[in-house]
């Protein structure tokens, strides 16, 4: 997968995607404006599908690769390393856990399936064909709110906590995403009734509830896997920013020697490595065990590793890293967009604390 991504999504493609998604008018003082062209490359998406990115965990009999969660996190780590844009987690989960044409389309990389965990913003909704919605664990209601508000209304999820909706009917308002490679929508106040995805995307409707498409979708499992795969993306980013920092520290000279010869820079890099290895261990362990507590731990450590490594990388780069042309900011911003919200983080911490009393 690393070779595939290096070949099909080299750094030039990353920067092209940034530029494509970026309709900034010079001097605006703000960031990318709303409504630019989508940053996901459909051709690349199909290539990912052909390479088995989405069908990785489907049995070979079903046209999949027949691998498990441990292999999936390795692949997602690579994707996170190169900041591959797109609704990777949603599409992978749809291919893995749904049935019918949406699942098949997702597996093949023909469809983009966004993932919504209200009240978090939804990534790539504008480019997506469908949106997979995961409600609160165990609840039958799906929080959603007026864009910009903190109060959320509720919509029916048909009793399962999982829903699949047409992307273009999903009530949400685009915001100026902090991450130029991840367009974002804030979820709207009320969910629409499930409605048919028509022939445009070539697939049938996916309605909530008793629909057989969702029959095998366990919301707890889906949330856990979403958390873990997202953590894997974060680990990839944390590894990349460490590599960038180390390379820069070896090459950049100040005061007559490479800055990596200074203890302060050395120790920043060492701290990054420690964070990375802890987070990576956490993600691999959770992938092997499939354990909920280990997944919670993985998410906490991976979010932390990605955002703090990106910041330390910026610190090592100094002013050179503060420009739009340097990739550092893309890692900082992706880490923010992927990070669990305050509510989810608290929930993970509470789960882990509660387990101590068992």
């Amino acid at each position, binding site marked *: 997968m690393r070779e595939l991504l290096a070949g099909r999504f080299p750094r030039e493609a990353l920067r092209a995607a940034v530029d494509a998604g970026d309709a900034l008018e010079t001097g605006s003082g703000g960031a990318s404006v709303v409504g630019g062209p989508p940053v996901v490359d459909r051709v690349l998406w199909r290539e990912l599908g052909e390479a088995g990115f989405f069908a990785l965990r489907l049995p070979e009999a079903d046209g999949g690769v027949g691998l498990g969660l441990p292999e999936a996190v390795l692949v997602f780590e690579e994707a996170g390393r190169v900041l591959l844009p797109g609704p990777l987690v949603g599409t992978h989960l749809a291919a893995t856990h749904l049935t019918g044409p949406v699942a098949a389309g997702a597996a093949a990389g023909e469809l983009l399936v966004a993932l919504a965990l209200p009240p978090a913003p939804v990534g790539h909704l504008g480019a997506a064909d469908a949106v997979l919605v995961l409600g609160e664990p165990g609840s039958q209601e799906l929080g959603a709110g007026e864009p910009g508000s903190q109060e959320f209304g509720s919509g029916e999820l048909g009793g399962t906590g999982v829903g699949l909706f047409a992307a273009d009917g999903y009530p949400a308002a685009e915001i100026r995403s902090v991450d130029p490679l991840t367009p974002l929508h804030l979820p709207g106040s009320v969910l629409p009734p499930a409605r048919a995805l028509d022939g445009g995307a070539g697939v049938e409707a996916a309605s909530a509830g008793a629909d057989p498409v969702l029959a095998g979708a366990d919301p707890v499992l889906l949330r856990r896997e979403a958390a873990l795969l997202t953590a894997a993306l974060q680990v990839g980013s944390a590894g990349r920013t460490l590599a960038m920092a180390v390379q820069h520290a070896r090459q950049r000279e100040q005061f007559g020697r490479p800055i990596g010869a200074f203890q302060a820079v050395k120790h920043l890099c060492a701290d990054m490595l420690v964070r990375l290895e802890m987070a990576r261990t956490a993600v691999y362990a959770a992938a092997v065990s499939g354990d909920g507590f280990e997944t919670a731990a993985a998410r906490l450590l991976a979010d932390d590793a990605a955002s703090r490594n990106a*910041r330390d990388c910026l610190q090592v780069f100094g002013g050179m890293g503060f*420009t739009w042309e340097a990739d550092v900011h893309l890692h*900082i911003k992706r880490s923010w967009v992927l990070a669990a919200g305050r509510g989810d983080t608290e929930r993970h911490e509470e789960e882990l604390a509660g387990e101590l009393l068992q």
Partner: protein
Amino acid sequence: MDLTYTAEQEEFRAGLRSWLGDVLPKLPPRPDPRDWPGRRAYDAGWQRMLYDAGYAGLHWPVDAGGRGATPVQHLIFLEETEKAGAPYVGANFVGLLHAGPTIAAEGTDEQRRRWLPPVLRGDEVWCQGFSEPGAGSDLASLRTRAVRDGDAYVVTGSKIWTSHAEVADWCELLVRTDPQAPKHRGISWLAMPMDAPGVTVRPLRTLAGSTEFAEMFLDEVRVPVENRVGEENDGWRVTMVTLSFERGTAFVGEVVACRRVLGEVARAAKANGSWDDPALRRGLGRLAAEFSVLWRLTQWNVSEAERSLRAGGTGVPGTGGSVFKLRYSHARQELYDTAAEVLGPLAQDTGHPWTAERLSSLSYTIAAGTSQIQKNIVAERILGLPKG
């Protein structure tokens, strides 16, 4: 002052407040941030109002056209203008806070006459050409060359992180005039006209998406020798002298602003329910403590500078400046990280000013001496630890 103000200082404050109350409502609307000429005109207009009211160059020496105000008066000025929501110094920053004081201190009479009055009136805008892509923390390793050719220097090289370059008339430029000398000894300070042939300005986009800064490329730009301030190869000292003129006031407005934002964040938390999280609430309490003390430290530093001046000293606050910078850089980042926690999903919107500020805050541990460099300075110069 120490930590309380004298009656005289309070009188100065009252007069300023009253004037601000009169003039601020009459200001024109702020220009679009992308409209550089508009911004320059706006900033020039405000500077002219200050000039007419006698507040221009408040802290400049009287013989340079300033008011010769004490550091504490300068602090009061910065505090009150920030609190009143007055315009920022904007395009006049380098002229008023750096190039002007440098010329006032080190320039010839003729140079002072030529350059200082237009700065005070807001007629001429300066920018700064110090940093280079290859010389970050190690500023003195700059490589932009100036070769003497008759009555001019021929300057070639590039500069970075130049603010307001698009609309500046002059650039205070550090150049290497003696490549053989030790790095601090071969630098000269030049006033370069920005319309000279060979000067190319290219906007530089930061990670926050803004183009407040520019790169500047200099291709055999001729700068008259008479535009050199200070002796040839003495530019490093000339520049360092000026840094001392800040007298602890550099971040007065920012700290006042941070305390205001912190209150806004707390109220936003109260409004959206995140206030109910005791951990978040106590974190806000901790930040309130930090910024309250940072404000006191600012007052203390400025007061120390004033005491030092009165005693015939340099007016450079001792320990306080570096201590302040180290803690403030970090506290500012924490403030906007906490603001993002309060915003929740809305923090992902760069349209929100706190998100833009969060991104900008990342530069605070880097710009004007990384925290690592600052700690070296503190350890070696203040604590007397041996050089590494």
